[in-house]
């Protein structure tokens, strides 16, 4: 096989100087990942994991690494303000920590919330194991994991969040990742490490937003570890600018009786991919996800959900809705594996999709593999259009067509936000969904 010329994207990312940590093992890991990334290049659509998400156009672009002006970019607080959310906050702008926008005073006892750079500066050794490998879960040598490689080579900043055993944090913690317009088209990378100790409890809000319309590439890799009996309520709001490409990978590991509940709204971005992986490694662990992806215009939003049941009596529920308008494309893969020995597990997955325009497309692929006994499993996926009878019923009562469509679409998505406990936040997120609909 002949070696094609390296893609501009690969070249530009490879050529960018790596962050120098002065820590031998970390620098070595970064070099290793960069070399692996350059050797592997970008996967094409023949690679199963990228079958519906082409990287061709992205591959032709160049991005500069790091924003020298990131600390002085003016970002309005309204960019990330959320009703019902007023607690500790960590804000990054173009991949750089912004103390001035963060709220880290008077953290409750038992909560550690710091920028990763600070931890690396103070004492990197405890993170050695985590940062020496690209991500918590999965075989990162697989071709599809190119962005995790880039991230592992390039990320020098991120979130370091720990909740000590037994500590229940009352106020929601807000993590904000802002893209802001810079002089050049930027690539930036963040690496988050989140751990809840035994019996700890946390409500976490993760926001990906933009100030103005930056054309940039961002990668965000998060490891989330829930120790025995820990409880995490995680809300993700992805609403980046329409010119931004965002590649995320979140790995959640749940020990015995740990429970994670995720609500996700995927609204923004040009090319967006989220690899969400969960391993239920302890007996009785539970992982619930609810999500909506709603691309319009020419957006492409891809969610890859992979759940592995590896212990007895583990439970996962996944309820995802996709709504695509205009010429947009949505992709959803929901892969559930019940591994040998994970007897008594219960896994359900539902992905319903709505096409609001004849040129929109959604590709959905539920996968279920069961290798254990006494397993309850249900999964299903549909793609359809708004029901004409319902539309006429609403119109016959005086509701104009556009409003009727919005009302039915919002209703279609309702199941996703129904059990979000923070009412003010739930109302706000519902409003964002409606605002995304065509007028």
């Amino acid at each position, binding site marked *: 096989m002949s070696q094609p010329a390296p893609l501009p994207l690969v070249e530009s990312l490879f050529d960018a100087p790596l962050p120098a940590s002065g820590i031998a093992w970390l620098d070595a890991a970064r070099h290793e990942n960069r070399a692996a990334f350059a050797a592997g290049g970008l996967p094409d659509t023949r690679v199963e994991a990228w079958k519906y998400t082409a990287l061709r156009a992205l591959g032709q672009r160049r991005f500069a690494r790091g924003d020298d002006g990131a600390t002085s970019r003016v970002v309005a607080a309204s960019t990330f303000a959320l009703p019902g959310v007023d607690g500790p906050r960590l804000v990054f702008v173009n991949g750089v920590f912004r103390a001035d926008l963060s709220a880290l005073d008077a953290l409750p006892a038992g909560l550690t919330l710091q920028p990763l750079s600070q931890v690396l500066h103070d004492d990197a050794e405890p993170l050695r194991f985590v940062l020496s490998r690209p991500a918590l879960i999965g075989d990162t040598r697989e071709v599809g994991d190119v962005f995790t490689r880039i991230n592992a080579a390039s990320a020098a900043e991120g979130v370091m969040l720990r909740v000590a055993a037994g500590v229940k944090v009352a106020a929601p913690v807000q993590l904000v990742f802002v893209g802001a317009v810079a002089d050049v088209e930027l690539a930036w990378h963040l690496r988050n490490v989140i751990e809840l100790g035994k019996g700890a409890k946390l409500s976490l809000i993760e926001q990906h937003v933009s100030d103005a319309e930056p054309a940039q590439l961002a990668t965000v890799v998060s490891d989330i570890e829930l120790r025995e009996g820990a409880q995490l309520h995680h809300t993700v709001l992805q609403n980046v600018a329409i010119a931004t490409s965002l590649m995320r990978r979140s790995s959640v590991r749940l020990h015995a009786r740990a429970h994670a509940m995720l609500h996700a709204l995927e609204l923004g971005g040009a090319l967006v991919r989220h690899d969400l992986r969960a391993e239920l490694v302890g007996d009785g662990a539970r992982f619930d996800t609810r999500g909506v992806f709603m691309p319009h215009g020419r957006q492409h939003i891809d969610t890859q959900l992979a759940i592995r049941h590896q212990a007895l009596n583990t439970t996962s529920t996944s309820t995802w809705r996709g709504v695509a308008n205009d010429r947009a494309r949505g992709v959803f893969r929901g892969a559930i594996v019940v591994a040998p020995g994970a007897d008594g597990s219960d896994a359900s997955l539902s992905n319903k999709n709505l096409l609001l325009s004849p040129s929109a497309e959604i590709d959905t692929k539920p996968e279920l593999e069961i290798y254990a006994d006494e397993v309850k499993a249900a999964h299903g996926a549909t793609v359809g259009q708004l029901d004409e009878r319902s539309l006429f019923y609403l119109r*016959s009562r005086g509701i104009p067509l556009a409003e009727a469509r919005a009302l039915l679409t919002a209703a279609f998505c309702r199941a996703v936000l129904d059990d979000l406990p923070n009412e003010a936040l739930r109302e706000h997120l519902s409003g964002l969904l409606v605002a995304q609909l065509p007028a």
Partner: protein
Amino acid sequence: MNMLKIENLHARVEGKEILKGLSLSVNAGEVHAIMGPNGAGKSTLGNVLSGRDGYEVTAGSVTYNGVDLLALEPEARAAAGVFLAFQYPVEIPGVNNTYFLRAAFNAQRKARGEKEFDSMQFLKLVREKLKVMQISDELLHRAVNEGFSGGEKKRNEIFQMAVLEPQLAILDETDSGLDIDALKHVADGVNALRSPDRAFLMITHYQRLLDYVVPDFVHVLADGRIVESGDKSLALKLEEHGYAGLGEGAAA
């Protein structure tokens, strides 16, 4: 001026001619019953008047308060005061009944250039109407028609009518599938809404609804046309003799 004037209406569904020259005039304050056998075009008439897709008008006209009704979108007809009580009300999961009704109510007011109601004002109105309709407010908290019994769905239609206060109400086989108690409730609701400003077009297969809502006029619709018109005694005659053999004189 008639409130509603239908002249020589021809309409097709999926290429098949269903209405073949239907003419009918309705004045404010009147209750008209349209009766006829299955397949005569009764439901087609209701659907054409309310603007449902898939019904092609090939000839004739419908004038409502001097306006060409057929040129209006369904929502504009509603705002102008036309209401269709569905034969098969649609279940809409995820949309709260009260929310839906307020959205409809305010959309109509907005279209007419009237001030919209806030949730307090609207709740007050709904409470008053509930009392008149004798409907449990539990229905209000549920999704539109979702999991409603047949009777509950029909009563919900009448309740919507009570809140929206149309000028012209078209009841499409509202009596079908109802037991006698539910039928009485629906009839009481309709009777409570009768007024000199409002007209009703009751489309029905059976005479029994007319025992409870007494019409001013009864029309027999057969093969796409009104073949006979009369007062309420015509309904009784139909009950006795059936549709066969009726309207021969008029059709000639």
